[in-house]
């Protein structure tokens, strides 16, 4: 589904990604873990075309997408849920969804309402007035409305109450069983290990570990060194 080959990118003078390679198979969930500032969000933004790669290749189903603008990448079936959610706060919930919706999308606004009943009740409300958890659901629903094959999720559990984190995890599990491929950025190790088929650890713009969730669970040394997990 997705492959990154020696991807370098950054902002202005600063080089952030120094040769990222990773692979995500069709219908799978890969988690990207790392400390603050490791380059997780930059990786996702580079895939989406928001930050142009300086070297290397990004391939979607074997086709190079690096260098394309975000709108083209979205049309090829990639959707993005950003870290800060970036919902359109002056639009209503319905408008946030309807500007994203595409006719051929498997996730119609009606289906999204079933999946996120809380949103269904808030359709006419201005999105800026939603709680953090509701905004996160809206950001996910908005991404799904474009009918993606690959979803890029940047820290969906960040800053949410535990009960809401559970709801978000459930919705991600439902998306996976719907056949969606997902690249999940997380700081919450438990959330990531729960959902992911494979795990990548990133540090200072380099991939320092790749393997299964089970392997990482047993490697307390890696967790301590790259995630700051207390042992």
């Amino acid at each position, binding site marked *: 589904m997705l492959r990154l080959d020696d991807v370098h990118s950054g902002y202005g003078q600063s080089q952030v990604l120094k040769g990222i390679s990773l692979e995500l198979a069709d219908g799978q969930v890969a988690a990207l873990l790392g400390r603050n500032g490791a380059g997780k969000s930059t990786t996702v933004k580079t895939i*989406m075309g*928001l930050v142009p790669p300086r070297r290397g290749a990004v391939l979607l189903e074997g086709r190079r997408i690096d260098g394309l*603008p*975000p*709108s083209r990448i*979205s*049309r090829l079936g990639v*959707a*993005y849920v*950003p870290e800060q959610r*970036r919902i*359109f*706060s*002056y*639009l209503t919930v319905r*408008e*946030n969804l*309807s*500007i*994203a919706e*595409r006719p051929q999308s498997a996730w119609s606004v009606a289906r999204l309402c079933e999946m996120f009943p809380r949103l269904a009740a808030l359709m006419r409300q201005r999105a800026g007035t939603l709680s953090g958890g509701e905004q996160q659901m809206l950001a996910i629903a*908005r991404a799904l409305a*474009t009918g993606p094959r690959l979803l890029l999720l940047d820290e969906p559990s960040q800053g949410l109450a535990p009960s809401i984190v559970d709801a978000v995890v459930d919705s991600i599990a439902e998306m996976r069983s719907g056949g969606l491929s997902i690249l999940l950025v997380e700081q919450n190790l438990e959330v990531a290990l729960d959902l992911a088929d494979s795990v990548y650890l990133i540090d200072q713009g380099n991939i320092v570990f790749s393997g299964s969730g089970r392997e990482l669970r047993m490697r307390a040394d890696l967790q301590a060194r790259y995630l700051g997990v207390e042992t």
Partner: protein
Amino acid sequence: MWSLLTVQLLNGLVLGMIYALAAAGLTLIFGMLDIPNFAHGAFYALGAYLAYTVAEKSGSVALAFVLAPIAVGVLGLAVDTFFLRRLARAGHVYQILFTLGAVLVIQETIVLLWGADSLSVDVPSYFAGGVEVGLVLFPYYRLFLVAVGALTIAAVWLALERTRYGAIIRAGIEDPDMVSCLGIDVARLFMVVFGLGVALAGLAGALIVPVRGGQPAMGTQLTGLSFVVVVIGGMGSFAGAVAGGLLVGVTQALMTVFYPPASQVGVFAAMAAVLLVRPQGLFGIR
């Protein structure tokens, strides 16, 4: 005294409607595209001259009010496609320099085609006469101008607030990159917004000709005022631009009665007053 005040209030409404139209266009361009369009007044002047010529050649004033803004809008589409969008990659400073240069090009083109002298245009014959306000006659044409301005603003507002395309434009004002991530070609969206923005300036120009005639540099003052109105109303806010435009127009007209020398300064005083109380402008969103 009361009839004079009423008439001045009406005149303020006329002036305010012109400012509201121009500033509504500028707030879209400035708020969403982030292009400080210093050529806004030049597009207004072009709208005025084109309307004059269309009315002259076709004998239809109605046609002039339709065709002139459309022509200005189409020119805007071309200017955005061939210049501004390419310059965006080079940085904002180049876009600003370009719009300043465009003022000269448009003004000189007007001088070449229509001459450097002022145009004076009679109010179309079927608008002759006016309503009596006390001892003063308030021309029908000015009422018509206010009505056309109000209807246009209402139509654009409805399109922005009630249609999917309008929602996309509002989303683009807030976060263009995110709109792009939803698969929407933001460059094309921006082109349409630029065209719409200058078409509104063109319509303002077309409407003002029978009141004030035309001069090649007639837009210079309007550009500055439009920026003031946009700031008063709040960057990117359509409602703010309309309210700000009306406020500035009425303020100017009333100042003319009470203390004429202050009629220009008053506008900036109004801006300062608004910004002191609400730094983000009347309806500002950022």
